[in-house]
């Protein structure tokens, strides 16, 4: 197989088992060969070169590595890449549309919901999953939904505001297009 990382090609080694993984990442089907022990976070970051997904704690506590698996937030540092085979993965790079930002992204900028930016991708994906399920959350519901994602800079108050901002914007947009909530 090739190395975990393309930059350093390694000779095929029969002792190292290989699995083929097919995932749809941000709408694009990707097929990669991986060692069975490779973490999903590392496949996304190093194999697929999508470095917006960060790894912070290795123990699934901080949530910096959060991605959406079939629309639900998962911590990609504690999931094997092979477990994602056949599934859809959304990373921060897949949040924005062709021409415009996702309301959650706009909300984080407008309400100063980030400082160093390291936890932000995971926070935004968790927030998106919440709003997909609950378009009109209370502050407590937002705080509970985000409680698996740690932030050391903001104190969360502005993150909560950012998510509520995005919820309002989404509902307004849904109202304009005539779609019900």
């Amino acid at each position: 197989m090739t190395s975990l990382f393309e930059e350093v090609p390694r000779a095929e080694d029969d002792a190292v088992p290989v699995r083929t993984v097919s995932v749809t990442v941000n709408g694009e089907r990707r097929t990669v060969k991986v060692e069975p022990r490779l973490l999903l976070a590392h496949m996304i970051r190093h194999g697929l070169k999508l470095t917006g997904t960060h790894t912070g704690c290795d123990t699934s506590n901080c949530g910096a590595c959060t991605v959406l698996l079939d629309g639900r937030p998962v911590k990609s540092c504690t999931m094997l890449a092979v477990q994602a085979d056949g599934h859809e993965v959304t990373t921060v790079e897949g949040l924005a549309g062709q021409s415009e930002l996702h309301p959650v992204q706009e909300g984080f900028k407008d309400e100063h919901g980030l400082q160093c930016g390291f936890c932000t991708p995971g926070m935004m994906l968790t927030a998106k999953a919440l709003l997909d399920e609950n378009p009109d959350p209370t502050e407590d519901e937002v705080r509970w939904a985000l409680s698996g994602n740690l932030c050391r800079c903001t104190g969360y108050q502005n993150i909560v505001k950012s998510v509520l901002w995005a919820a309002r914007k989404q509902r307004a947009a849904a109202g304009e297009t005539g779609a019900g909530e």
Partner: protein
Amino acid sequence: MTALDEIKIGGLGASRRRVEDNRFIRGKGNYVDDIVLPGMLHMEILRSPVAHARIVSVDTSKAWAIPGVRLVLTGEMMAKRNLAWMPTLSYDTQAVLATDKVRFQGQEVACVIADDPYIAKDACEAIVVEYETLPVVVNPEQALAADAPLIRDDKENQHDNVVFDWEVGDAAGTDRAFAQADLVSKIDLHYPRSHPSPIECCGSIADFDRSTSKLTVYMTTQAPHIIRAAVSLVAELPEHMIRIVSPDIGGGFGNKVPVYPGYVMSILASILLERPVKWIEDKTGNLISTGFGRDVYLRGEMALRKDGRILGVRMHTVSDHGAFFADAQPSKFKIGLMHSAFAAYDIPAAHLLARGVYTNKAPGGVAYRCSFRVTEAMFFQERMVQAAADDLGMDQAEFRRVNFVRDDDFPHRTAFGFLTDSGQYGKCLDVGLEAIGYADFQERKKEAAARGRLLGIGISTMTEPLGAGNSREYDILGIKMFDSAELRVHMTGKALLRTGAKTQGQGHETTWAQIVAHELGLPAEDVVVEEGDTDTAPFGMGTYASRSTPVAGAAVAMVARKIRAKARKLAAHLLEVSEEDVEWELGRFYVRSAPNRGVTIQECAAAAYSNMPDGMEPGLENVAYYDPPNLTWPFACYIATVEVDPQTGVWDVLNFVAVDDCGVRINPMIVEGQIMGGLTEAYAMASMQFITYDAEGNCVGSNYMDYLLPTAWETPGFELHEVVTPCPHHPIGAKGIGECATVGGPAAFVNAVMDALKGFGVRNIDMPMLPDRVHEAITTGRDVSGHPPVRQDD
């Protein structure tokens, strides 16, 4: 034509949305682990599982045998290159890789460089190290015992575990004050060891190019120029052949100031292998081996007069520095700015005795979101103040007011010798008391008590020294603590600004441009800000200790003024009048006698490249180095109300009011973000966040399951207020703000809980005020100490 609207161009006072967010919200940040270089190898560190042991043998043969392993480094190999030890920022030495013995759990013992990090980790596990364990020391009492094992037997003339003894203040004058006292109040505290714990751990990519002899290091550092100087001095590489690049940083809080062994090993490995070597620390490595904060025992006495005036203060501190005295602090004072305590109060005499000790714990004390030791100083101060008010039977707000330095007393020389210059302490307190509903609180407390509920209110008021510093008293490795800014205005009036600071979330890319907008009238969006690359940025001392705005921010204003001075000459030339006849308003020069005749700053910029007067040097760029005349002294008043459940010891924050006076606010939105973040870390320390050790020296708190950080669910809401007293010596009147809330916040929470427990005869519960500790205090009526070794139920 009139002056520009400053808010519209994003100048001072504009809550301008952040420029850096555009990449962060798209996942396009560029953190060190995102950087990939051709041919890059990966490094992992093998750490000691024990806290104190002699190394009998290190067998790396099995590691070398694993395919993909390129290099295995041990202490012995480092020693052959004279690199097994490195100097610390506090004039001690620290092991890069252990040779003789390990002195704390997590100490670096060997490292592996391999084709990918999985292989490197496998190889680390294949290294066999034989240890002969030694008795372990986990607190100062053990360290100072007569039969204590000598931790630093590597040092000549070190016969005990004392790092330093140091004192400051007036011992005789303080004795006299105590002799005159009506009452002496005492308190005994431990400020627990904590870890800044940014979500991103430390890391580096060293890239030595043999063909050019140039070493480039991408690394998580808050101070790239200091690192360049340190690498040059330690590794004896020529400074112009070293380039340190600090890319986006996922939070610093002081953790990313020191030089860590991992950086050094990655550099050596790259030089040996002539390939880029990446080291990305894991969370456990970060928590158990890199710069912690606090871990100080504080004992104090306050001499009081019956009318509530403080006559004098005695402080005695014992600080636990771990195995190596690697404090990252720039002051000439051994215990940092501990003696900034009580600066807000008018106290005639004070004396501080400080002792530092070695223990078998991680080294590298850092200023965790504070100027060095200011957090401990202010916590001690405000706990002492509350105890004194209680002993006097005086209202805690009134006691503070009686002893505050008055508005017309500035400049004021503190009992420990600092010079404070401005503030409206009483006004800040009034705003806070009004906002929290202080007048009605005792009534609410009584009502709640009738229903079996315990309410408490806690105040913390403090001024702290931020912005190291003036070059007389502050330096790192002898380099004075100035900072710098370089501004290039292009011919179209667009500009590039570079500073010697390094943002880690503070928003420099946004706020520095606002200072330029304020000084030159260039729209902030026309100014690009770059930091962190030593090949391009002017020499500066980096970002920590809330020094960016006080020092680098001042340099930005000063360089913009240099640009404006030259632009004035260009304006005079364009307007065909003498320079004395030219007036400035934001964005424009005009003729004094004919205000309609004017030229914009952009027209002046164009002229600098296309139509300068005879004899004038072309171009419009300059650099400023700024050495501040003094520290800045922001003031804060934090007030918390809490409810304690006597059945469980759980306490909840009912309300929290913060009144901050940080002088002129460049970007109010960002200032408020800093305050809320700081308050959350204050809440964290008061409620759950601490690093402790068991009797064997095992670090309890080596991952986020044991080291608790508050989430969005636990974190209370904060109500923010402001008072503005401009700094008299800062070019735009600003003071530091990044750390005030972390420094002043903890005492508000603790004082509130202690206020709620007033009827139980308890004077102190050490932080964090875990429910079991609060419950124990309630049920036993005794103080609860929290120093290590950890208790089974914590």
